[in-house]
């Protein structure tokens, strides 16, 4: 949606550095097909994702990295890339849908691993839009006058629900897809009030709930002692609704950001489209229809690792973007239909 005012320059935040972390070696479709008993061609055709990374060892089932481990690694890289010293970090904001524990919040373990103390930390429980929500909160904190720099993190470990003992040969696509779509990873960015490091100005952020009265497109359940043996699917998705709605929402996000910033489509040099799966992302990118913009995507290689995705895309963007160039990112969280996106300009 469009709002009349534009962000005036004093309230612009900046990204000074980006870091990412992917666990272990990439797992390709052949390997996944072997391990899970899934049809490899089906993955290629209907998912279009080539590789992904898992924090859990696909053969032994052993958990090798926690979410905190991955997020801390990404945070450390982002700090290094930004050129800021750890003691310049005034806060940490993290978005995730798959925390290591419900308590303590994973963000605090991350701060601990990074040697940060005596600062505010925030954890936003959110799906794919969590990274954007974290960016928005980070921006609010550094432009509000109280803070000058902070660490914004997104990450997810989906392999918690990767049940390697299951025989999937007779599974329905809606069930199967959960095994082949997702991956694990983390990403981070250092947000600053002044342009430093990579000098990416955050021109606009969109974060909006639009799910009034709508069934969620995606549900990740959690289980406690009382219901741990309940026979419910831990991850459920309404793929029909997602396929129908996400492309439409993506176009609306794009145009709302453009119109808010008064940018024309031709002025966008890079597009960071929603990263659902290799196939869906291709479709959505076609519909976003910014032929002059260079697409920066990662999902075909990283799998859908939720809140890590925008940071992985940012990392790819940084390799290409030059001063004066502009980038637009679009993300849709299909759980309760959250529109999100952000606009960047290298200065």
């Amino acid at each position, binding site marked *: *949606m469009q709002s009349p005012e534009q962000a005036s320059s004093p309230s612009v935040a900046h990204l000074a550095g980006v870091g990412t972390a992917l666990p272990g070696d990439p797992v390709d479709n052949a390997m996944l097909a072997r391990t899970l008993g899934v049809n490899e061609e089906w993955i290629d055709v209907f998912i279009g994702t080539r590789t992904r990374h898992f924090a859990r060892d696909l053969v032994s089932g052993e958990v090798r990295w926690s979410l905190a481990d991955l997020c801390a690694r990404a945070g450390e890289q982002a700090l290094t890339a930004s050129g800021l010293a750890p003691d310049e970090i005034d806060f940490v904001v993290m978005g995730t849908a798959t925390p290591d524990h419900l308590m303590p919040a994973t963000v605090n373990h991350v701060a601990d691993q990074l040697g940060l103390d005596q600062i505010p930390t925030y954890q936003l429980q959110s799906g794919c839009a969590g990274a954007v929500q974290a960016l928005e909160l980070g921006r609010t904190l550094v432009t509000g006058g109280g803070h000058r720099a902070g660490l914004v993190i997104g990450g997810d470990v989906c392999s918690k629900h990767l049940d390697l003992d299951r025989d999937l040969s007779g599974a329905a696509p809606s069930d199967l897809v959960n095994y082949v779509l997702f991956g694990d990873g983390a990403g981070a960015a250092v947000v600053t009030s002044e342009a430093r490091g990579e000098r990416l100005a955050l021109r606009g952020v969109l974060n909006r709930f639009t799910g009034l009265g*709508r069934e969620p497109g995606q549900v990740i359940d959690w289980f406690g002692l009382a219901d741990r043996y309940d026979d419910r699917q831990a991850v459920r998705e309404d793929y029909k609704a997602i396929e129908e709605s996400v492309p439409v929402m993506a176009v609306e996000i794009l145009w709302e950001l453009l119109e808010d910033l008064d940018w024309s489509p031709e002025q966008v040099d890079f597009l960071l489209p929603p990263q659902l799966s290799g196939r869906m992302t291709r479709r959505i990118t076609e519909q976003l229809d910014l032929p002059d913009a260079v697409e920066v995507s990662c999902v075909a290689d990283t799998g859908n690792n939720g809140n890590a995705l925008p940071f992985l895309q940012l990392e790819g963007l940084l390799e290409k973007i030059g001063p004066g160039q502009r980038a637009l990112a679009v993300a849709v969280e299909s759980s309760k239909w959250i529109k999100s996106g952000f606009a960047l300009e290298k200065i």
Partner: protein
Amino acid sequence: MKPVAIVGIDCRFPGAPDAGAYWDMLMRSGDGVDKVPGQRWNAREFHSPTGEDGHSNTTEGGFISDPDAFDNEFFTVSPREAAAMDPQQRLLLQCAWRAVEDSGVAPQRLAGTDTGVFVGIMGNEWAQLHMTDYARVTAQLGSGNGYCMTANRISYHLDLKGPSLAVDTACSSSLVAVHLACNALLAEECDTAIAAGVNVALTPALGIFYTQAGLSSPDGRCKPFSADADGIGRGEGVGAVVLRRLEDAIADGQQVYAVIRGTAVNQDGRSNGITAPNRWSQQEVVAAAYRRAGVEPSEVAFTEAHGTGTVLGDMIEVKALGHLHSGRSGRPMAIGSVKGNIGHAEGAAGIAGLIKVALSLHHKVVPASRFAAKENPALKLAKQGLRLLKAPLRLRSGPTIGGLSSFGMGGTNAHALLESAPAHAVRPEAGDPESGHTDSGAAGLGTGVFTLTAPSLEALRRNLLVQADAVQRRRTPVGPLCWSSNRAKTGHRHRFALPAADTGELAAGLREAAADDDLLARLSDRPAGKPRVALLFTGQGSQYPAMTARLYRQSPLYRRFLDEADTALAPHTGGSVREKLLSGDEAVHRTGWTQPALFAVEYALAASLTELGVRPALLLGHSVGEYAAAVLAGVFPLQDAARLITARGALMEELPEGGGMLAVRAPLTELTELVDTEPLVGVGAVNGPQATVLSGDLAALERIEDELRGRGVKTRRLEVSHAFHSPLMTPMLDRFAALADEIGGGVPTLPVYSTLRGRLLEAEPMDAKYWTEHISAPVLFGDAMTRLLEAGPTHLVEVGPRPVLTRMARTLRTVAGEGVHTVAPVPDEEADGRAFAEAVAALFRGGVDPNWDKAYPEEERVAQRLVPYAFSDTQRFWTRTPVRAVAPADLGVVTDDAAHTVRPYAQKQSAASGHGAVRTAVLPSAGEDQAADPVARAVIEAVAEVGGYAPDEVSALSLLYEDLGFDSVMVMELKDRIQERLSGLEEISVQDLLPRLSSVGDLVGYLQDRTDSAVA
């Protein structure tokens, strides 16, 4: 012009069966366009991609679901008549009904009013199909067709006496209808107006016309202002809005979606061709609407454009708007068109746009316009001061103005300006004299009563479930919800009522009632005639400490009247009856307190019921109960009665103790001899043929009791302080009579069945003599009650702190008293506001129409929208076969049940077979020709095998995803099976197959091509 409020909406558009779904679809940028349903015409036969003569270039369009469903029983239309009616009439009738309900008004309440009906319509295809077979023109067919009948039928079935007319100005019809409706309201021709539009496509004729005129989009979709715009796609729909003058809507507390500020209509005149749009006339009609509304172009935030998606039409419209907006300050005006979602709904296009604009202003967001992302650069929108709605536009809080254009092919143009509803329209300010709301005292039962009525039990069940779903979906305060149900959901034979303390409980209760026949029978009734309510006022012995204290705390209405009684009693009682009750004081068992306390409780209950609009037809009071009954009957004012009852109690309490009362299970005649032997004992009461109460000296009563026990007669001592209605009362009579003389008492204005006389009082005063005699004379309840029952009451309501008289009456019920309902507003010592609400609910079920305003405190009397009536969709009327290209043998009314539809929707039509006119659709079966072809046979077998169907359940028309439920894994398997079966076929990939998988026929066709080329 003065503002006109849109207070009610209902609609059905392609992809959206109701207004809520319509809004959801708009916000999702949904696509309502789909293949031409097989029920309408055979799209393939009329299809020619190149647009040959007599053909259309598309097989798609925006079609509404279930155009054949009509709840004829609801409107008491015979199946024969319904089958002869243009479906547009049927759809409008249901739509209008629902729109009126949505406005918070029970449609029956409009009966006999000057409400006007204005219908925009331009399609007459039903008549073209049915009225041309002259041999088969019946009387029903005559009234079932014609534009006029669409409006007139609504007026007829809703009994509306204002103007009623249909308008045809081609595609602007329904906005012109709105314009006429507004004018009629402003001219005070009517106080409520229903404006509607309808369009149902039954023949390919207009599609062929659009194609031949070069106006038809090959994919059947309008793409307004898009670079891809390539013509019109036909759309359907039915929509109705209820309009009021804004001031009236506010005064009546109706919720307002949006306000119409100005409308205008004009004509191209002799322009550049009769069908060509005219820029100058368009800009003039828009400017005229602005002038009429007193609005500057820059104030208009957005406009729902006509936007047909023809390159020329879009260009002219943009230029016309640009003329007014190119110079505007601030942001450009946002434009969009719903035609991108549902196609061009022709006669219903204006109402589709109006509803979209009204809902946008209501929800404070304008949906994105479908296909807007690819804007047509040639339109140069920015230069015209316009921009296309590529993303939803969030509207500021505060007043916002939106416009709406609708242009007709023959040159009649219409424009309307709407504004968001004024803030105070949502809720009238409490105590605001301007709102016309005068507070006549505290109201409220303490618990709301949800009511629902329906013409049949089945309809009741269906609507209970619909309401349960809606109530559960979103948290709303239950009081306003109940009050709104009382207002909008009344008027049908079957009357359901359920007290509810919160929405969760309400939803569960509605669901349970729908599922459980016994429960439903308890919670609903079908009264045969007008209710006759008898109020029975309980006597001494029914009192207990803290009686009605809970009710007092919870019900403001009851509180008001108990306070009133307390105030009247206080000067005489030397203390507060109310305080005694609230503190649970045991003193209420002392007759000096018992009598005023019972009087206060009974007065308050009766006054509350009267305030609630329960009109007592018969009154009866047991002993002291007659005092409150007498006040109700206007014998004397409350203050006098209070003084007299207090004195009565006090004088009795002063009498020496030692008296008592004995209830005997025996007829009076068997006891007279015994009583005559004891001068200090009298007959206290005759409650029935086997229920006599003796009253008098305790020692004497004991002697009688012994004697009776010896005879084996059951007796029971009553816990009383004195021997009421006995000779022991004599010492107080003179003093009481002196006071009673002072007070007097008139002839009751309501029928009182006197327990002193044992019969109806006939023009006899209840004066000093009466009340004095009343003290020691026996209470002839049995006789009085028998007479009362003979007078045929429908309800016996116990006005007292516990049900006593209603129970005693049960033994007296003869044939005359059968089927009488008993109601206890205070059923037990724990009784609270909910119990009182249940009593009111029971009265409602039995046919009483309470004044519901008194059942809720003012803050709960706020309109809430309830889901409108859910009509039955089991009756289907579609009396002809689909239109074929070859001249059909029979275009008349046929009553065959041959299947011609593609979609299997037979599951909805279980009850349909009883009527000859109703068709039942079934899954189409494989044709002979297909079975003969090896490729077709192989494909059908493979599809059947993978999907788990019998081969004859799969036909060329079956849609793989929609009909057969295929998913991507099944597609992988299908590919393998086909490959196995067609050995001559070269290797095919899933990628090749995916675009060919809409219908089995498409797949067969593709594979035939592949095998042919392989052979060649």
